[in-house]
């Protein structure tokens, strides 16, 4: 067994230190070391998007990032999306549009959708569908998810104006 490595990072705005096996993924560290189980493992191979997090501003599958690569970097997960007790507009719209059933893919889709709206505040339906094509949902057929994201985008644009 190789020795564990200490990693210092900023997760959801807070500084954290954790020990990790050199082969462990960022997803493993988030879930097992930091207790942030909102990011899910659906495949472990970057195909389902359930583990989506934002690493230094970039949307990644945390199952494809080594935990040691988080050293000195900023990680945003689903647990940091609501501010205090206040839901993000995307979270609120997912509830209003019934854009989730089992909810397992929901954290990853919300994180991915937030990343979309940061680079494209006014996405078309096609742009939204292609951006979220890396996030599998087996329950909803995506219809209500796409509507919720586009509705959230519209509301965020109003807030900005």
């Amino acid at each position, binding site marked *: 067994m190789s020795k564990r490595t200490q990693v210092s990072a900023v997760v959801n705005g807070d500084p954290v230190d954790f020990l990790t*096996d050199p082969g462990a993924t960022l997803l493993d560290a988030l879930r097992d070391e930091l207790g942030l189980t909102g990011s899910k493992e*659906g495949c472990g*191979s970057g195909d389902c998007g359930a583990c989506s997090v934002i690493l230094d501003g970039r949307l990644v599958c945390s199952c494809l990032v080594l935990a040691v690569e988080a050293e000195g970097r900023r990680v945003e997960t689903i647990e940091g999306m609501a501010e205090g007790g206040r839901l993000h507009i995307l979270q609120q719209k997912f509830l209003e549009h019934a854009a989730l059933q089992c909810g*397992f893919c929901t954290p990853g889709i919300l994180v991915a959708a937030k990343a979309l709206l940061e680079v494209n505040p006014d996405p078309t339906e096609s742009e939204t569908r292609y951006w979220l094509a890396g996030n599998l949902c087996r329950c*909803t057929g995506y219809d209500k998810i796409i509507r919720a994201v586009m509705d959230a985008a519209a509301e965020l644009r109003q807030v900005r104006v």
Partner: protein
Amino acid sequence: MSDVLERPASSAPLDDGRLKIVGTRPIRPDGVDKVTGRALYGADLAMPGMLVGKVLRSPHPHARIVSIDTRKARALPGVKAIITGADFPELADEEYEAGESASNLRDLALNVMARDKALYNGHALAAVAATSSAVADEALSLIEVVYEVLPHVVAVEAAMADDAPVLHDKLFTGGLKEKPTKASNIAKRNEIKRGDLAAGFAEADVIFESRYDTAATHQGYIEPHACVASMASDGQCQVWSSSQGQFMIRTYCAKVLDIDASSIRVTPAEIGGGFGGKTTVYLEPLALALSRQSGAPVKMVMTRDEVFRASGPTSASVMTVRLGAKADGTLTAADVELKFQAGAFPGSPVGAASMTALACYDIPNFSIVGYDVVTNTPKVAAYRAPGAPISAFGVESAMDDLALTLGMDPIALREKNAVHDGTKASYGPTFRNIGYAETLEAIRSHPHYSAPLGPNQGRGVAVGFWFNVGGESTAAVNIAEDGTAMVITGNPDIGGSRASMAMMAAEVLGLPIEKVRPIVADTASIGFSMLTGGSRTTFAVGMAVTQAAQKIVEDLKRRAALLMDVSVDQVDWIYGAAVCTDVSKGKADLSLADLAAKSGQTGGPIGSQISLNAQGAGPGFGVHVCDVEVDPETGHVTILRYTAAQDVGKAIHPSYVEGQIQGGVAQGVGWALNEEYVFDTGGVMENAGFLDYRVPVASDLPMIDTVMVEVANPRHPFGAKGVGEVPIVPPLAAVANAVRGAIGKRMTSLPLSPPKIRAAIDAG
């Protein structure tokens, strides 16, 4: 876009037109947990001192297990337990009824852990528990298994051949007039017949016949199977797991390990999708056995590779369908033969596929013969309307060709032969309160059906049927001291059932929805319920919830009468308050909160529990229309537009009914276009991951329009029918029929992958 069509003529007992909550769209009670990452699924629980459990799986599709030597693995530091088939009791060959499907317990136990033979690539041979994932992996690599590799068979017709390798030397084909003397992979032949087939075909002006095949597909839930289990030294067991039924997990663990059911407490985790695939056990008995040996809690989580190789899928199939009709479209005869792959043990859904195949049609003469065939592939598990999408693909494709041959509109042909109230269904009972005609009409009159099509585009129609079930269910309603309510049920919430449970209780109690909290309880905290499956929960558990709430209302009226000092027949319950109907008495209304605060004076805590066996689940019918465009260069199919109409009885929470329909359509589209198990010649699945087993992604689909037809089911207090399964039945054929329209060729083999479509176009 969504529409609701109502037929008020047959309304349900409690639907008096004054419903305040049922039929509205409140935010689901578990929603905030799910959008914030708080909701805890199977893999999200950690217990102190917990070990990691992993499974050694067979690399061969068919092999005799000569020996398993675990000594080197046991010697590895950090390894705390190792189990093989020898650690489990030998079980009797008995059937156990559980929800939609019966399970043979011996087969179930052998599927969980092989004994003498490995029957598919991925079959569990041994399991270890260790202090870390890395140690567990190393331990697996140190287990030495000696195999005698046997010839294998994957394809269903190959497995039926006389010279096929035989999986089970004591399996003799059931359902034959004479018991065979030779073991066979054909576990069972089933047959449903009516009238005189030969006479029916002799009457026909047109006869159409074709052969169809479908590939094995996986349920594809995004959450892999996962559990944490602990067995203490006194034999008391705790299981936390993601499944479609905590009582099912309890039963199967008790049987496989020979433990009293009452010694196993199963707590349901949130379930990350099931679609039928989580109606059985894989990991839980192993985790308990590892915990028993190690003395520590054990967590087991499947990889996606394991999910594909060792859980699910549904059957691959080969079918023939022969239809006879008069020139005016009247069906005179139908002859259907279904051959279904069961995987390593008997139990494909060919029985349900047979019963549903012609359920939408009133045909005087028919024969449906089904074969349940074992193969060296994972044992199939239930998948949403098990079997029905497969037989519907064959029958609905044939109906489409029949309509073309007759020059009839495809909906007109179906209307001409549709079942109605009073029709004796092909599978036996007489239909009552069905909304099939209304559902056909909903699509015929929908703007989608008459919208223009462009070049390389086609439109397909298909219909589908599912029984829906009721069954044993328990629900409790307890009133808190402030007059708010808890609704306690024993059914995992897959698609929003907690919302519908709370809504039905709130409607009866007259409380705002926010004052009613639904929970899904562990097996020690609520009475037995059959698992979440068969589209039964909103119907059957909803019936228990409604009756429990009604019982409370009766009790509240009694309590109010005591406090008001009037007789109980002078008290009514109106929108959450007891009202004295005799105005002359001048009694103030008593709200639920008032009555709860004074419960000590009127008999103590307010609560009720109802256990029932719900009967009268209304069958469901769906009619779908799909537009596609086929790229003639690549053979790629794009779904341009999709509209699904379904008789839902009464939509308790319309958004989640729409969601069920949309989700079923998406899965059906995947089944039609992309999804398939691909095996190499060595019997190993080549595409055991989401990159190569391609489920539909957001960019593959358009919005999916739904039309909820509400023909009430009078057996349910609010008129509900099951809705979750019907929507996966029509899409396979709806897509194939649309492709037929686009390319002018009939595709009879699923999935309709680009190479197949190119080949069909190139064939000219």
